[in-house]
């Protein structure tokens, strides 16, 4: 009897400690997911909601702008994540064994644009790329290149956005890699050096395989971050020219808050939710294996 009462009390203490977090979590995380799935099956006009099954989804897949948004989002994810991993590996493997001041200087230089935020960086890039009085079109004219309107050209707009997003955000991956590389025991490198391995061999055959868990983490976190890419689209291109640079998040936002298509927007949200969930399975498995 006593033992039972003790364990009830212990349970209760535990629940009390998690209660505030759990309550917020249920209201602002769990409920919106359930409600989002429900809304995606309805047609919503101001006050009235009509159940229409999967029609929102059917219409989405028939909508060329949605298809374009999906393709663009996938293109952004693939290229931005690949560039980020390759460049961050290059920077981190060059600096990780140098003196601490130099490491923190380089790391800081790449991280500052992350801190300053995508909003501010998008504004600067929109000025730098402005066809009439931006620095980059000016340089392009000096070099007598044919196209100077980088954001107005359907073929150039995606590469430009990929570059801007990558350059702004690569700093977080560098911080993660440097931390992880500093953690690799020094004697492994020393042993390899004694065996006559060159620096490049050490980097490719020892260092990069050793930081693989960090690589997986960076890939997943960046996929999730690029999946919701929005600010740079809104501030640089507005999805244009002619929907050439629209993304899923931008499409969702427009449907929800400009065209008042809440059912459609919810369906886009559910699709993005499922993508995020599937993509995060490897990371979740890695995290739970650790425990």
């Amino acid at each position: 009897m006593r033992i039972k009462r003790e364990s009830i009390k212990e349970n209760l203490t535990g629940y009390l400690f998690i209660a505030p977090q759990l309550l917020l979590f249920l209201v602002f995380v769990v409920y919106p997911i359930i409600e989002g799935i429900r809304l995606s099956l309805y047609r919503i006009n101001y006050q009235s909601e009509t159940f229409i099954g999967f029609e929102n989804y059917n219409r989405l897949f028939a909508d060329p702008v949605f298809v374009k948004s999906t393709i663009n989002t996938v293109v952004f994810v693939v290229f931005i994540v690949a560039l980020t991993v390759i460049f961050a590996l290059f920077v981190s493997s060059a600096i990780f064994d140098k003196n601490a001041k130099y490491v923190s200087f380089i790391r800081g230089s790449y991280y500052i644009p992350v801190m300053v935020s995508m909003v501010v960086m998008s504004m600067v890039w929109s000025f730098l790329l402005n066809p009439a009085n931006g620095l980059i079109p000016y340089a392009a004219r000096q070099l007598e290149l044919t196209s100077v309107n980088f954001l107005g050209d359907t073929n150039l707009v995606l590469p430009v956005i990929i570059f801007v997003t990558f350059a702004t955000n690569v700093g977080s991956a560098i911080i993660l890699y440097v931390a992880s590389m500093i953690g690799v025991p020094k004697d492994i490198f020393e042993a390899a050096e004694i065996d006559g391995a060159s620096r490049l061999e050490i980097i490719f055959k020892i260092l990069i395989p050793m930081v693989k868990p960090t690589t997986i983490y960076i890939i997943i976190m960046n996929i999730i971050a690029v999946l919701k890419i929005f600010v740079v689209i809104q501030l640089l291109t507005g999805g244009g020219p002619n929907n050439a640079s629209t993304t899923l998040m931008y499409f969702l936002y427009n449907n929800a808050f400009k065209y008042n298509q809440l059912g459609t927007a919810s369906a886009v949200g559910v699709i993005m939710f499922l993508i995020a969930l599937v993509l995060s399975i490897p990371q979740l498995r890695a995290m739970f294996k650790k425990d």
Partner: protein
Amino acid sequence: MMGMFRKGNKNKKKKEKIDIILNGLVIFFAVLNLFPLYWLFTSSLKNSSDVVKMPPDWFPKTITFSNYVDVFNNQPAFRWAFNSIFVSLVSTIALIIVSCLAAYAFSKLKFKGKNVIFIIFISSLMVPKEVMIVPLFRIIQDLGMVNSLNGMIWPNVATAFGVFMLKGFFDSIPDSLRESARIDGASEFTVFYRIMVPMVKPGIGALFILNFVQVWNDYLWQLVVGQDENSKTLMVGIATLMQDLNPNFAYKMAGATVAAVPMLLIFIFFQKYFTSGISIGAVKE
């Protein structure tokens, strides 16, 4: 012996050469990556004609602060800044309180369903709140929190990120510490508040900085919730300058600088918390 020495030396030199080339490139790209910020800052100090002059002035010839005066005169920039600071600060403090409590429970207490709840918490980390922005906005509407800073704050406190991060810190404190204090008659909350919380201070510091910046830059949600002039945050307000009819780029750049400076200062003063905080979030193996 001479020969051996020379060979070793030569080998080392060759290695250093590649290393020097790579590091040279790293420095070159670092400077290039900072150039847009240099351009932002110097453009904000130019007058409206110098800023669009081609060929450009690489250094501003005459320095003017009039763009900054205009930003603060034409726009409620102080109000925006106050809103940003308030939202970031309150979200972060509230997050630290609720996630400290929960992380402690997940780490040190025993209760039914603990593992299941924890797994659900952690799984949610991978789903950005933006994908459920429609139902989330409707909740905020129902709670009467549209155009209020409350609406920007509470969804951010719901994230499980703090629990995930702080649990690791509580895990590293030996259980015996709690048990002996409990035997001495301290209540669970006293143990938590007097013994455990002071020991996870580095984790709280890192979480504070990371979350503050996260909320400060939480543009899309703040854009949706704060629609009237009074509830705009700095990021949302500054971004509207881009759509402003005023064609003066120096003015827009001054606005962007105003939004950038607070974060730059935070980074310069708290750099070590960032580097530790970000890595704590990652898998360590």
